[in-house]
């Protein structure tokens, strides 16, 4: 209920600002006086089309959607304001720029005198700041209330359409940029292909420094090959070949997080090639097996059936013993003998 009311109010506010109709103080300005006021603006704003200073060019600003002058880097606040620069909107903005669009970058504190505002708007309008399209006929030019490019945003702005009307719709191209996850069924795999042979040189260049020439790994970096048949042994080796249930995870992770410190730098073809290299190093595919969005989901990893969900407690409730619960207690192991605890100065310097 509240959300609906809130959204309606805000929509009404935006709509009111968009319907500049003249007849206000803004329309009755003195152009000559406005020229003097504009000197304060000229430090940051030019009237020549495309000439941006600290602020954007004001050529054609009246009637333009806020945050849309070409090749100017706006604040997000300005870009997402949904405001259209009608004369009324400009008048409100110039009263206190920081309050009208919160978070915008214009440092100017605002004009205190209503006459100054009316005059400077009149001057801007008379000096190239009017609507870009020439009036079709003599007399009052119809000021576009909503710029076409911003129409969709302004109409629902800034509501995402939910109860609270917060956020904006995520555009398909934005989702595509971030949505990099790949599922075992292949959903999310990009176009492209690669083979182990193609991946070998790249592996040597970008992966082998930590993971070894074949994925055997150095030091405490994770080994990626070998370990077949060790999972039930005393010291299991959990690698891609012995443990990972899905090949899709290799592709996803290599693209998402590798090389360490240069994540998401690999192309789709490179990622397919490196995934193929790792699978071939684990003897799961041939050197020239072509890995792509079609072939990858069809691979069955050796340990695909090695996982299960266990969601009941291992220990059902019981009332534990409180007295004489055992006859004696023996110490069977001591940390001091193993002696791997960091101590002394190491402790002091371990946190920077």
């Amino acid at each position, binding site marked *: 209920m509240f959300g609906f009311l809130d959204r309606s109010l805000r929509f009404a506010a935006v709509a009111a600002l968009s319907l500049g109709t003249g007849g206000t103080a803004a329309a009755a300005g003195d152009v000559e006086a406005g020229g003097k006021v504009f000197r304060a603006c000229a430090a940051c704003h030019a009237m020549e089309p495309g000439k941006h200073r600290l602020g954007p060019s004001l050529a054609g600003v009246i009637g333009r959607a806020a945050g849309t002058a070409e090749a100017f880097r706006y604040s997000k606040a300005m870009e997402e304001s949904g405001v259209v620069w009608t004369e009324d909107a400009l008048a409100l903005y110039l009263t206190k720029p920081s309050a009208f669009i919160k978070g915008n970058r214009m440092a100017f504190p605002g004009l205190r005198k209503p006459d100054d505002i009316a005059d400077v708007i009149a001057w801007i309008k008379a000096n190239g700041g009017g609507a870009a399209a020439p009036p079709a006929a003599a007399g009052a030019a119809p000021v576009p209330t909503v710029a076409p490019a911003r129409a969709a945003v302004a109409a629902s702005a800034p509501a995402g359409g939910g109860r609270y009307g917060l*956020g904006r719709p995520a555009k398909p191209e934005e989702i595509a940029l971030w949505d990099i*996850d790949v599922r075992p069924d292949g959903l999310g795999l990009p176009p492209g292909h690669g083979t182990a042979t193609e991946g070998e040189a790249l592996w040597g260049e970008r992966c082998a420094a930590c993971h070894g020439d074949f994925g055997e790994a150095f030091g405490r970096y994770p080994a990626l090959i070998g370990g077949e048949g060790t999972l039930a042994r005393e010291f299991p080796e959990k690698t891609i070949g012995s443990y990972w249930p899905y090949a899709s995870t290799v592709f996803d992770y290599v693209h998402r997080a590798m090389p360490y410190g240069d994540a998401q730098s690999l192309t789709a073809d490179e990622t397919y090639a490196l995934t193929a290299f790792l699978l071939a190093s684990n003897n799961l595919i041939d050197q020239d097996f072509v890995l792509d969005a079609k072939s990858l989901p069809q691979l069955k990893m050796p340990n695909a059936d090695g996982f299960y969900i266990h969601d009941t407690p291992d220990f059902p409730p019981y009332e534990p013993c*409180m007295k004489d619960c055992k006859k004696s207690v023996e110490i069977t192991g001591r940390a001091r003998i193993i002696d791997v605890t*960091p101590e002394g100065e190491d402790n002091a310097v371990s946190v920077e």
Partner: protein
Amino acid sequence: MAKGLGASDQMLGRVVRVTDAAAPAGPSRRQLIAGGGVLAAAAVALGAGPARPQDIGIADHTRHLGTSVDEYPYGVPSPHEAQVIRRSVPWLTATRESSINFTPLHELEGIVTPSGVCFERHHAGAPDIGPAEHRLMIHGLVERPLVLTMAELRRFPPVTRFYFLECAANSGMEWRGAQLNGVQFTHGMIHCVQYAGVPLRTLLEECGVKPAGKWLLAEGADAAAMTRSLPIEKALDDCLVAYTMNGERLRREQGYPLRLVVPGWEGNVWVKWLRRLEIGDQPWYQREETSKYTDLMPDGRARQFSWLMEPKSVIVNPSPQAPLTARGANVLRGFAWTGNGLVKRVDVSLDGGINWTPARLEGPLLPKCLTQFYHDFVWNGEPMLLQSRVIDETGYVQPTYQQLIDIRGVNSVYHNHAIQTWLVNEAGGAENVRVS
């Protein structure tokens, strides 16, 4: 009134200075007291009548002015508490960015962990993200895919909640035997803070989850783009999208400006630097839910999606980093917690589990939170084997190592919640031991 106070301050300052000037030549009283062990001399100089205990004197800080306001615009702990820091085990990980450090549990008391000592676990370092640039995208099987700014997120009705966060690998180095000699290292991958944020349910309702949406993928904005799949039931239950911890914005290393809070579940799913939530009809089987954070059982198969942090407790004082220093009256102190909800009871044993006594639970007692327990005892100087055992509201009793290993073996890495034993020797020192 204010004027009067000012004048009085001036007076005080003058008096102090006069006294200082009147001090005898040679080492000043300030130096004497700072030197320690010379308080007796100070007492003599003061001309005190009857002999008084050596630690009683008129200290410089009682006479001279302390630091001004704004000396520390953001306050820091007392310099005498410099040992209360996170510590790491350098040999554990290959790099310092994909690594972990540990909360100094033995130095903490009460259920709140100070933000600066909450343990860190990153998979590609802690990024520095500006809140104005940060965006949360929610998409997938939803009616209205959305992009939200931090300012917009803060306009949803918030809630404030205390929760513990424990890494699934906490105590993971201890499966095969007592290894690390300090509760910070054996149990320090845990913290408990107060969050403020938006219920995840509110955000999902804002987007309208489609009926086919059964799973949620959470993704971080760090260079590991950390991802985990969560069932939609949990997402709609008690999860939060949090921007505040302990009254201030999240610390950078805890996910600034936005993190997921998944109460009672393993820390890895509490995705930090949260940038994306995707709704799908099945899990994604990401690296952190296949290769990692799965529990290998003795038969060579592995448990998957074992999110729940089971009931666990530990005595933090005494412990190897916090020895007993005196015989006679002493207080044993520890923490208990359970992902199931409330801690119902904590028992402590001083004899390695032969006899048990219920400990005193000190409030607040909150679900999915650290619970502080105390046990007052008299130490006569004899060795002790200290243990604690929690029982939660579901009746789950924290298992012994033997009970746990009988079922899970020693290769599961994660979810070790067995009873810890400290051996306290005649000198009061404590050691991490395993007992029969």
